[in-house]
């Protein structure tokens, strides 16, 4: 960064500022920065406009990013990027208000290069991504909100920002503006109206705890981390999940719940989070940890059905703005990175022909369809409506599993044979066979 160190004359030392760019990227998150970085490294003049005072400043994600997709854009990023812990353990809890069934997977090879995933603070990680883009030659412009698109003969020809002399022209605009995708709507590309049924609200607290304590409590090797997903009564029976991620010396803990279910049940997400933290098995993990931050953010979960038109004349859409979130596996950042990279590669290919119209940029859609991005989103296209219409998955079933486990493990004067009968009776009384079959069938249809 200190490229100017000890350089004497200021005049002429700076690269002259271009009046237009080949490509403008709107939004400096993972999608936008992957696109910006890829284009800059290929020698294209590219400006990335970010509304925050730096990339990451508006981000609240303290969660997991995956090695493989990230290293496709930023090879061997783990050697330099600010990461918290490499994740060696993934847990899934089925929890009630006072008990939990825990499924845990741990693997030694998750603990060595190239690793599988890392916990990160995106506020720091995105800043690092932006520094890579700058080093590759991109123009990072922060604190600048893009308010509209410029049009010329019906095609997108640039952007209008809120700054004085705020218009800027380009051959192509890549919209990577995140979940509140106003420009996508303005460009006439949106397919679903913004609806509470299509977004989840995630609330999160960051709690400070000494790193030795984290490693003790979560049973981790030094530097290794755990990611825990929690389903059950913990979300008040609403469609959503809880999560805990271990960072270096903090813990991220939160819940994500479909926004419309909060509205329908007249509940606030923070009330759910407060209850969640009182769950005894969970409380033990965070005991004595002091709160550092509280934040909330929307996550687009409309999935494939709500995906906007991804390309138009002179415009592409990537990342959250394009609804690229897989709610089943809690993946978003990696889809954003990959789609940003593919948007950039599409632009590079189109530059060869000097054409940026719809027909040429349709290549982006074809690339995405061949990739995990659209394949995964298509696979789970019915997931969000399925989960929303089957609240028993978040209330009844975990509750029942716990009840069965409790009964099975309790030793009393019931003979084992009678115990089995009792368990079966208990199960049938809660879930008639027909209903179980239907739920299984629905799940199979929606999720496989």
């Amino acid at each position, binding site marked *: 960064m*200190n490229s*100017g160190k000890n350089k004497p004359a200021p005049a002429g030392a700076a690269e002259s500022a271009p009046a237009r760019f080949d490509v403008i990227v709107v939004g400096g998150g993972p999608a936008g920065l992957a696109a910006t970085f890829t284009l800059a490294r290929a020698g294209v003049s590219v400006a990335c406009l970010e509304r925050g005072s730096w990339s990451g400043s508006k981000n609240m994600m303290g969660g997991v990013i995956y090695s493989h997709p990230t290293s496709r854009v930023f090879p061997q990023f783990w050697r330099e990027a600010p990461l918290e812990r490499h994740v060696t353990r993934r847990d899934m809890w089925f929890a009630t208000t006072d008990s939990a069934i825990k499924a845990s997977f741990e693997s030694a090879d998750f603990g060595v290069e190239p690793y599988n995933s890392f916990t990160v603070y995106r506020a720091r990680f995105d800043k690092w991504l932006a520094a890579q883009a700058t080093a590759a030659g991109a123009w990072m412009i922060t604190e600048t909100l893009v308010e509209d698109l410029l049009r010329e003969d019906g095609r997108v020809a640039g952007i209008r920002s809120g*700054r004085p002399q705020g218009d800027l022209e380009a051959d192509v605009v890549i919209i990577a503006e995140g979940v509140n995708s106003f420009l996508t709507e303005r460009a006439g590309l949106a397919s679903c109206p913004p609806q509470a049924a299509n977004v989840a609200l995630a609330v999160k607290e960051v709690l400070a705890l000494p790193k030795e304590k984290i490693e003790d409590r979560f049973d981790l090797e030094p530097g290794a981390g755990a990611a825990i997903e929690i389903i059950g009564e913990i979300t008040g029976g609403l469609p959503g999940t809880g999560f805990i991620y271990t960072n270096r010396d903090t813990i991220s803990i939160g819940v994500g719940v479909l926004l419309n279910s909060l509205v329908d049940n007249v509940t606030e997400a923070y009330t759910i989070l407060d209850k969640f933290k009182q769950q005894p098995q969970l409380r033990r993990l965070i005991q004595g940890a002091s709160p550092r931050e509280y934040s909330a953010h929307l996550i687009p979960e409309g999935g494939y059905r709500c995906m906007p038109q991804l390309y138009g004349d002179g415009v592409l859409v990537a990342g959250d703005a394009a609804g690229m979130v897989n709610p089943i596996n809690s993946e978003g950042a990696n889809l954003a990175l990959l789609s940003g990279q593919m948007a950039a590669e599409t632009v590079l290919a189109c530059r060869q022909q000097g054409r940026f119209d719809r027909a040429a940029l349709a290549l982006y859609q074809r690339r995405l369809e061949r990739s995990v991005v659209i394949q995964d989103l298509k696979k789970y296209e019915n997931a969000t409506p399925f989960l929303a219409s089957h609240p028993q998955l978040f209330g009844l079933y975990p509750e029942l599993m716990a009840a069965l486990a409790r009964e099975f493990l309790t030793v009393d004067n019931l003979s084992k044979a009678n115990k089995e009968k009792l368990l079966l009776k208990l199960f049938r009384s809660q879930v008639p066979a027909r209903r179980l079959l239907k739920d299984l069938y629905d799940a199979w249809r929606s999720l496989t």
Partner: protein
Amino acid sequence: MPINSVVCIKQVPDTSQVRIDPETGSLVRQGIPSVANPYDLYALETALSIRDRHGGFITALSMGPPQAEEVLRKTLGYGADRAVLLSDRAFAGADTLATTYALAAAVEKIAAGSLVANIGSGKGVDIVFCGKQSIDGDTGQVGPGLARRLSFSQLTYVCSLLEVDLKAMRVKAWRQREDGRELLQAQMPVAVTVTEQCSSIRYASLPGLIAAAKKPVEVWSAADLNVERGRLGLKGSPTRVSKIFAPPARQRGEALSGPGKSAGEMAASLFDRLADRGLKIGRRGG
């Protein structure tokens, strides 16, 4: 004739997010983002508006850790022509005496450079702008200290810089006092410290930001300046902080309220209370 000015910018912790450690009384700076000292941005705007009128060249100057580059980069976005950061371990721990020593040496270097490059009025640096004080140290000494070291005239607590007369090499300004304002005139070169009554910083234009995005921030170490090392940083700082404490929170005043009572009744109850506290009140004609 254009004016060559230097604006001193200090990187300070964003006080809206600073907490005070109740035990030690010191600021908890860990993890707190840094911003430009707000008064320094009023100083920068004052310099920019003078350049708008007369033309000229503005150098933003800061001393601090390498991260202070970000704050300086912002000044380039607002329209500063050049940004210089004094960054070296030798500068660390400086009080205002050592700070002004290093900054003055940098201003002299900038002045010498502008003479060679024929920037500004052709007389070196014409005006040094500072904020009236920093929001973390609050001393208000750096501006006047610079004036003294550079043998510049000085105008402190300027709330409005009225006019710059390039022929006579004079500036005229309103100075804020506790009891009012005074109109002052000073000979250039001059050091000016400004208050929040000056215009707040402009909204940088998009072309300005683009131009700034890749402008280098020059980093100077102690070796780049004509200085004696013993007078820099902690070594050159006679000031020692012997104690820090957080001021006790002010007691809330007492408010009298009497719904349905007349003004006369309220006044009477006020008099009674004052009398209870031993205040002697003479009543006219009583």
